[in-house]
């Protein structure tokens, strides 16, 4: 990744963050914390890595993306809007009656959404199905899915992991957003699914540990390394910061499912816009 690409992705991620803050503020609800923790990876996948085309969103050979942690929908929506799947003005209507953007991703209503998700544990199984289909018909596409770390407490995640490992779905990338927090507290306080790396390895995965989910060079190195694996599915366990990019939301469990109020939104927007202006210099 060269300097120009790095700069572009950094700015793109901040534009996505603006959409997350503004849309959840407008909706007066939603999940900014877990959207912001995956923003950099979403920017990397949709603006650099994945073989996709907003003008041909249902191309059968495209790479697929499944947001298994469907509550991070504001992150996905802002990414898709910035990528050109639909008009950015849709973000302001998030979660409102008759809006295209539902509280959780709806593949029938939103261009670019490859699977309806929201009930935790289910998206990763659908991603397995997509990967299996690709293998069965010798397609080159890859399937990316992001799981929450708290989501890994769902039994279905491990049913899916068993399936992916046993069927050797090497075209599958399971990304775990390891921010360490869930609604009722930290993972350690609630019902820890750790150690996640050892668990995925035991289920037959190639495990890659990404120690900073907000460093594009490291993100790129992890996903490039995943492409070298030809026999096993890959799990990328990425260390992320919940609320990343909005200072007062960072590492705060309370920002899991709470929207910013007017004052908080203004502070967050200014913070991000200042950063964007600086990046543009």
């Amino acid at each position, binding site marked *: 990744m060269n300097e120009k690409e790095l700069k572009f992705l950094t700015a793109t991620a901040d534009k996505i963050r603006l959409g997350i803050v503004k849309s959840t503020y407008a909706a007066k609800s939603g999940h900014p914390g877990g959207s912001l923790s995956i923003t950099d990876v979403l920017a990397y996948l949709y603006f650099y890595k994945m073989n996709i085309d907003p003008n041909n969103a249902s191309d*059968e050979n495209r790479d*697929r993306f*499944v947001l298994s942690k469907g509550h991070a929908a504001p992150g996905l929506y802002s990414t898709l809007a910035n990528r050109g799947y639909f008009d950015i003005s849709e973000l302001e209507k998030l979660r409102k009656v008759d809006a295209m953007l539902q509280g959780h991703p*709806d*593949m*029938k209503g939103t261009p670019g959404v*490859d*699977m*309806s998700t*929201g*009930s935790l*544990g*289910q*998206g*990763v*199984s*659908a*991603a*397995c*199905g*997509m*990967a*299996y*289909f*690709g293998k*069965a018909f010798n397609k080159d596409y890859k399937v990316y899915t992001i799981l929450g770390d708290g989501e890994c407490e769902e*039994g*279905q995640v491990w*049913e*899916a992991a*068993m*399936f992916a490992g*046993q*069927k050797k779905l090497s075209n599958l990338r399971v990304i775990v957003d390891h921010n360490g927090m869930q609604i009722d507290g930290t993972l350690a306080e609630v019902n820890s699914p750790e150690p996640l790396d050892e668990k995925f390895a035991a289920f037959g995965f190639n495990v890659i540990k990404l120690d900073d989910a907000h460093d594009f060079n490291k993100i790129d190195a992890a996903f490039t390394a995943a492409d070298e694996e030809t026999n096993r599915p890959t799990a990328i366990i990425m260390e992320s910061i919940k609320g990343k990019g909005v200072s007062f939301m960072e590492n705060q469990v309370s920002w899991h499912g709470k929207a910013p109020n007017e004052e908080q939104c203004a502070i967050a927007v200014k913070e991000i816009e200042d950063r964007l202006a600086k990046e543009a210099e």
Partner: protein
Amino acid sequence: MKRATRESYGAALAELSKENDKLFVLDADLAEATKTITFKKACPERFIDCGIAEGNMIGVAAGLATCGATVFASSFAMFAAGRAFEQIRNSVCYPKLNVKIGATHAGISVGEDGATHQCLEDIALMRSIPNMVIVNPCDDIEAMQAVKAAAEYKGPVYLRFGRLAVEDLNNEDYEFTIGKGVLLRDGTDVTIIATGLPVGRSLKAAELLEKEGISARVVNIHTIKPIDREIIIESAKKTGLIVTVEEHNIIGGLGSAVSEVLSEEVPTKLCRVGINDTFGYSGPAEELLTRFGLDAEGIKTKIINALKTK
């Protein structure tokens, strides 16, 4: 011919494999019992054994369907409609994906395995989900056609099959249409509306009633959702008293579906024959069917009692 509708399921899938390259059949370690083994032998490359993990199986089915596959996901009714209810609702029906649930071993006629395996609630569960079509065939001929019709239909279908062999009651020229009830026998005193395995026993009950001077009309409702309102309304107008017969809890199944139509369109006395909100238990299937009043004699007795209050 006499064979269980689960056998028909496997046989129909094997035939379909020759026509559709994108047809996948999934099972959860029950291929020998659900009879998807017949498909596996015909088309091993499109058979996926997901192991004993029904929730994931439904999700995998959904993912395959997003890529353009026609998918049949199979297990016992208990573990498909029961255990994987929420996956069926959220991953299949909400996005209206082309996934068929092939649920075998429905009802009390599972027999010896007992209560944990005798699913008596699946129709109620599946009926409450938008976008779901529910088909409960009564014999081999109908089951074979129902599987093929489900494969043609774009969207979720719940297919309910039994473990116990049933006699053919339809002829080879029978034509199955999703959502279209079938008048099997005309009559004037009472209409028996049945679904699945009890359809044959209801016909026998009608014969027994005839000997006692009672003229019973018999209607086969193979599609419980969307239900054929016309044939129910027509029957109610013609005979008054309606008796529903099903191998399911009387709450939420065919009886409830028919009562909804009757009470909205043509309020008519209804008697529901089925499992009276209780669990089953172990025993040979035929003995259990008799014990629960789902043999021809039992159905006849219920009808005679209901006629006294007509």
